[in-house]
């Protein structure tokens, strides 16, 4: 699909200062992988590479004057991406580096909103680099750290050489409670095959919900006081679109500020097509994906990652959408 539409994949790299973000960026820019990437960074100096495909951005976040979060986008990205797409020459991908305390939402929303950006680029993955030694403290002190994890498709749990195996397991478990669906890679100095990070199509909902975590439960026995958590809803009967569609629209409008991400695969009544839906805050995207296979169980799954979600209410309302 990506090749047919000729969309350039965009990888967003986020993470706290000191997590190893720049190490990863420098690897992408210097290693002989045979690919050509444009990189949008916050400070030239940190990257330290003389490359005509590095663009300095000032992270201009434009917000609606009425506070409407769905229109909070990275205006600078729209401008820069437009400029990059007009350049001649092959570009295998675009990397966007965000600052340490950045909220990934405006970046992700940019790829939902602008028609030109949507046609010519495709958000490939949000990669969050974290410092295994300091993450637990960062999570406790700053909601931004949890948000960066909540938005991640891929997490590089970096600097693993600085922590014990037990501590590493604790950190990883805590990440999982915030985001059950991100792929987690343990690394030292971001030493990972770049093919595990770039060109993953990980933002694609089709990829994510094929993985059903066996550790995922709807309620947690030990509730951590994390701001960000997840909710997974399932239904083994088809849903009535007359109820589900208005419901999911209302949910994203009412709770969109608190919903970081939402993804679902839905079996609709009297419909042989799998219906898929993905959202970032109040921005929703969905449609028929492909026919259900004859040997495929027509179960619906809907996942929310967000803060303070009314889990019982969402569960009951989702179940009431069943036929």
């Amino acid at each position: 699909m990506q090749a047919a539409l000729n969309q350039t994949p965009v990888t967003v790299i986020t993470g706290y200062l000191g997590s190893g973000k720049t190490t990863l960026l420098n690897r992408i820019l210097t290693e002989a992988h045979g690919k050509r990437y444009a990189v949008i960074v916050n400070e030239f100096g940190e990257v330290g590479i003389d490359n005509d495909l590095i663009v300095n951005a000032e992270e201009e976040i434009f917000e609606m004057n009425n506070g409407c979060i769905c229109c909070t986008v990275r205006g600078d990205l729209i401008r820069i991406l437009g400029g990059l797409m007009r350049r001649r020459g092959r570009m295998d991908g675009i990397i966007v580096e965000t600052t340490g305390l950045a909220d990934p939402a405006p970046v992700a929303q940019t790829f939902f909103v602008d028609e030109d950006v949507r046609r010519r680029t495709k958000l490939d993955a949000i990669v969050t680099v974290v410092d295994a030694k300091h993450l637990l403290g960062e999570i406790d002190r700053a909601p931004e750290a949890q948000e960066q994890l909540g938005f991640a498709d891929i997490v590089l749990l970096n600097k693993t050489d600085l922590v014990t195996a037990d501590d590493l397991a604790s950190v990883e478990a805590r990440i999982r409670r915030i985001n059950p669906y991100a792929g987690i890679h343990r690394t030292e100095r971001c030493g990972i095959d770049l093919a595990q990070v770039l060109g993953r199509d990980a933002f694609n909902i089709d990829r994510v919900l094929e993985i059903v975590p066996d550790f995922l439960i709807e309620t947690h026995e030990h509730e951590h006081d994390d701001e960000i958590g997840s909710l997974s809803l399932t239904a083994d009967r088809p849903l009535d679109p007359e109820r589900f569609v208005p419901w999911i629209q209302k949910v994203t409008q009412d709770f969109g500020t608190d919903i970081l991400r939402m993804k679902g695969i839905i079996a609709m009544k009297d419909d042989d097509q799998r219906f898929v839906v993905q959202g970032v805050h109040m921005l929703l995207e969905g449609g028929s994906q492909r026919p259900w296979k004859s040997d495929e169980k027509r179960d619906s799954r809907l996942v929310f990652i967000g803060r303070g979600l009314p889990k019982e209410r969402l569960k009951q309302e989702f179940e009431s959408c069943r036929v």
Partner: protein
Amino acid sequence: MHMDAFFFPRKTSNRRRDAALRLKEHARTVINADDETVVSVSERDCGDPGCGGARTIVLIMHPRRPTEAVKIDKPLEQITQTELSDALAPLAAQTGLPEPPSKPK
């Protein structure tokens, strides 16, 4: 029920993108946008059965100012330059700059 009508379209197209670019270009002319101003055009479901299914949103982003938006209850490929000019007229007026004449369709 047309499922896809209730969401942002999942699949975009060259035709829609080209129409969006034309609208962007015209919008920039109407509001006398400088190089720092970013104009974004997108189409989404309007949530109201009376609107015909689609709403086009034009975002005008000026540095150091809140974003402004105009909404036209039509698919973006059906919007004429006159309709866009009329929708943007209040924003052009706010800048204090003379409004350019509406171009023919």
